[in-house]
């Protein structure tokens, strides 16, 4: 390599030397310089060439050193099989966490693509009661096996259904479509559902705070406030929570057999409802829910044109200490109901005893109420007391009941309840004891309606 470089340099110099005189000789004759100037120039050029030669020799030497270094045997690499340092471990962990962070949304999305993910949430409630009454003696009452289904339907609606199996048969207790995307905080509900009247009328039997529905609700509402119809609800744009609801139904009352649910009718024969409900946050730990409801049937279909008014006020006070909400608390719930309607002055005739004489209707007022108080002593034990009073719809003497009870939550999904009731009604005074056992399987939803 060194010999080749030197040869090239020599060729370069010879070529330069050959070139320089001819270059000098090529100068036009008329520009010929004096002999001393030519020699100086030549000396200058030779000095420049010497400088270039030195630079080239330096470059050749550097290249040779580089070649020699690269060509020499490799020194052994440092041993990397030592234990990773804490810094490397930390780095590996951070890289892993970064990768997991980035792919986690994709993994979660992949899980959601299975077809079964579109199935509704399904839950099943089993409610069974053992009872003993003075007059009717003992009985095991299978109250209900209730399946609940719920799902979003599309970006605009959700649906739910409650299908209830009882000793009387299978029934669609609720099946409703509810809007989720209307403007102005409106919600429209249609189908079969519990009308927005009062508070406990909207509770399924197994969700009640006690074993049996209060007498006033059984008598005036006739079971849950079930209705086939449509309901519109509005959340007012105020700082104060206020909802306004209006609805139209064939009838209200799951066991209301006085009105036929299946026949067409005039607008005057539907039942109309209005309700206003608000919430008062007294302190962080104390609050009151307050509501007023009014249901009006201009012409009760079977009552020869008699109208019916049912009004109610409901109040629920809650003490829920925020830091101990699972273990301490107190609830006091009360509803007052007032019924005004035309009733036959001698009452409706018994089936099979009807005569051709027209019935004489007179307006009848009836009043009823219930009030209960329930304490939360621990996560498991909820003792309570219920007071019932309700007049007969036909202004018969009232019925009174007193029911202390104890609810035991074995877990969030299993509940036992022991209740004693002293019932006092015209012609009957009775002691009753109930042991209720209720469980929930499957999907579990904390509903706003049932709070």
């Amino acid at each position, binding site marked *: 390599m060194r010999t080749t470089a030197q040869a090239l340099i020599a060729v370069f110099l010879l070529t330069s030397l050959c070139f320089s005189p001819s270059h000098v000789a090529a100068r036009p004759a008329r520009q010929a310089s004096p002999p001393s100037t030519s020699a100086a120039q030549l000396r200058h050029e030779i000095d420049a060439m010497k400088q270039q030669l030195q630079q080239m020799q330096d470059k050749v030497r550097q290249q040779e050193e580089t070649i020699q270094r690269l060509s020499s045997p490799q020194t052994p690499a440092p041993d990397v099989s030592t234990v990773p340092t804490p810094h490397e471990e930390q780095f590996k962990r951070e890289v892993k*966490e970064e990768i*997991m*962070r980035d792919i*986690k*949304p994709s993994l*979660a999305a992949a899980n959601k693509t299975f077809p079964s993910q579109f199935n509704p949430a399904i839950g099943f409630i089993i409610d069974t009661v053992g009872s003993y009454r003075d007059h009717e003696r003992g009985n095991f009452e299978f109250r209900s096996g209730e399946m609940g289904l719920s799902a979003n339907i599309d*970006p605009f609606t959700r649906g739910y259904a409650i299908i209830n199996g009882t000793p009387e048969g299978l029934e669609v207790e609720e099946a409703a479509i509810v809007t*989720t*995307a*209307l403007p*102005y*905080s*409106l*919600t429209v509900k249609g189908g079969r559902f519990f009308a927005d009247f009062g508070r406990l009328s909207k509770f399924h039997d197994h969700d009640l705070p006690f074993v049996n529905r209060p007498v006033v609700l059984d008598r005036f509402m006739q079971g849950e406030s079930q209705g086939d119809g449509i309901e519109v609800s509005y*959340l*007012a*744009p*105020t*700082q*104060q*929570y206020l909802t306004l609801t209006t609805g139209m139904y064939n009838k209200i009352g799951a066991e209301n057999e006085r009105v036929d649910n299946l026949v067409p009718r005039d607008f005057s024969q539907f039942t109309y409802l209005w309700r206003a409900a*608000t*919430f008062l*946050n007294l302190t*962080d730990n104390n*609050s009151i*829910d307050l509501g007023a409801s009014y249901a009006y049937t201009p012409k009760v279909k079977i009552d020869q044109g008699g109208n019916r008014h049912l009004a109610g006020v409901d109040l629920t006070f*809650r003490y*829920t200490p*925020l*830091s*101990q*909400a*699972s*273990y301490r608390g107190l609830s006091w719930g009360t509803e007052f109901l007032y019924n005004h309607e035309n009733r036959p002055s001698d009452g409706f005739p018994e089936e099979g005893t009807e005569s051709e004489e027209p019935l004489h209707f007179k307006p009848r007022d009836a009043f009823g109420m219930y009030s209960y108080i329930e304490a939360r002593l*621990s*996560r*498991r034990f909820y003792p309570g007391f219920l007071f019932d009073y309700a007049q007969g719809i036909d202004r018969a003497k009232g019925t009174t009941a007193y029911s202390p009870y104890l609810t035991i939550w074995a*877990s*969030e*999904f299993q509940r036992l309840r022991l209740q004693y009731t002293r019932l006092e009604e015209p012609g009957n005074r009775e002691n009753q004891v109930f042991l209720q056992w209720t469980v929930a*399987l499957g999907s579990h*939803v*904390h*509903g*706003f309606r049932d*709070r």
Partner: protein
Amino acid sequence: MTRIALVLLAVLLMVPVSLKGADRKIQAVATIPDLADMARNIAGDLIDVTSLATGVEDIHAVPMKPSFAVLLNRADVVILMGLEIEHAFLPALLEAARNPKILRDAPGYIDCSVYVTPLDVPTRLDRALGDQHPVGNPHINLDPVRGKDMARALADGLTRNYPEYEATFKKNLDTYLATLDAAIARWEQEAKPLHGIKLVSYHPDMLYFAERFGMEAVGTIEIRAGVDPTPGHIAELQERMRRERVGLVVRELHYPAGLAETIAQSTGATLVELPAMVGGVPEAKDYLSFIDYNLRTVLKAVQKGT
């Protein structure tokens, strides 16, 4: 009278529209104060955020107040910790709030767990195993490193809804994460005496805290998550604590005091009482001071025990 009623109705319907203005702050509702604090750090003056929980509650038992529905009705975004931890109150409140912008998986639904890899994901869902956390242990706010992931998810959620403020959110997030990083480095250094210490907690919510600071969560006073202990379970737990030399009993402040104290005394462990959220004690006024308080309290308890 009908005319007056119609006019009043028209005014009522117009009120929400007339309140919306170009300079209106982002109205946010966070489920817990930890997220509200992070939101303020990330969005600064751009956001007005309210927390549904005050910090003293058991997050599984936050009351479902109708007044929360009013807050959510007006919210532009809802910020939640996720992993189904808010299942006892948030789904029903979102339904009552009638605000399509913040329904589940809508743009305004900001789930802060999306970048977190949870621990303790059940391989089988069965109620026999208690009130399981079906997608993994959700108490991620007790780990400041996962807190960083929560902050990132929060910032991304805000950016998704307000892309015009992306630069501001990013800048503030970077500053906040840098502050958290410095604090984490300091905490990990300070937590060295905790390495290998075993603890029992009332509920399985100390898992992430224990993992971060080198401790080992070996059991819970609850027989299963959400199920109060039986005498048999307490006896077994005490025996196990003696056998494995468990040094700490952690009582989260929203659980009953007496039982945790009894178990600590009978096993020779040290009782330590901790908040589970920002605001759970007065000293835990923001996320950094919340983690700081928990770590210092545990360190003091361990030092007292030795």
